[in-house]
C-alpha cells in the first residue's frame, strides 16, 4: 500500500510500529516528484503533464497531491482527468492528450493501473510517453515479485521510465 496512514488502516503516523496487531504489510510510497524531474530532463520542453486518477482512492489522492505540489514547483501544468471505473481510463487518457498533455503520468492508482494497456494504446495514438510509478504489467515475474497483476507484455510496448519498489517484508 502506498500510504497506510492516508488509507486509514489504523497505523500511528508517528510510529509505524504502532498498528493493529493483526496487520502486516509495507508502505510503498514512490517518488512521483523524481519521475517528473526525470521527465523534464528527458524533454526540457515539457509543459503539461496528464494525470488520470480516481478520487475515491486514498492512495491515489496522496500521489495526486504530490504531483500537484511538484508540478507547481517545476512550473508544469498538471492536467487531471478523473476516472471512476477502469473502462473509462482509455477515454480519459485520450482526453488528456487532446488537451495537450506532453506525457501521461500514472501514479499508483489501481483503477488506472489495471487499464495500463489502454493508457499505453492512447499514448501511442497521441505520440506521447507514459510514465508510471509501478509495474503492474511485467516482462518477467522474477523481476517484479510484488506486482499484483499482469496484463500481458505491456512493458515491451510502453514508452516509459518506471520506478518500482520491490516488496520487502
Amino acid at each position, binding site marked *: 500500500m502506498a500510504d497506510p496512514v492516508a488509507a486509514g488502516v489504523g497505523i500511528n503516523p508517528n510510529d509505524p510500529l504502532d498498528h493493529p496487531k493483526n496487520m502486516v504489510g509495507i508502505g510503498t510510497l514512490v517518488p512521483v516528484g523524481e519521475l517528473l524531474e526525470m521527465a523534464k*530532463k528527458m524533454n526540457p520542453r515539457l509543459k503539461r503533464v496528464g494525470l488520470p486518477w480516481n478520487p475515491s482512492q486514498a492512495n491515489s489522492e496522496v500521489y495526486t497531491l504530490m504531483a500537484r505540489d511538484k508540478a507547481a514547483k517545476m512550473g508544469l501544468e498538471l492536467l487531471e482527468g478523473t476516472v471512476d471505473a477502469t473502462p473509462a481510463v482509455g477515454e480519459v487518457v485520450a482526453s488528456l492528450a487532446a488537451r495537450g498533455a506532453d506525457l501521461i503520468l500514472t501514479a499508483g492508482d489501481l483503477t488506472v493501473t489495471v487499464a495500463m494497456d489502454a493508457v499505453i494504446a492512447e499514448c501511442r495514438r497521441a505520440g506521447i*510517453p507514459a510514465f508510471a510509478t509501478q509495474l503492474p504489467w511485467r516482462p518477467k515475474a522474477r523481476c517484479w515479485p510484488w506486482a499484483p497483476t499482469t496484463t500481458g507484455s505491456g512493458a515491451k510496448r510502453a514508452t516509459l521510465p518506471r520506478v518500482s519498489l520491490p516488496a520487502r517484508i
Partner: protein
Amino acid sequence: MNRIPIIYSFPKRLVINRAELRRLKEPWTFPPEILAIAKDVSEPDAS
C-alpha cells in the same frame, strides 16, 4: 515485545523502452545518467 525491523529505504528500479522513442512527436531522449541506471526492455525488433 519483539519488534520486526522495518526497512524504510527500498531499492528503486527504473525501466525504460528506448525503442519507443521513435514513436513520439516530441524530442524525448534518455540522458546518460538515466541510461546508466535503467533497465531497457526494448526488443531488438521492436517497431
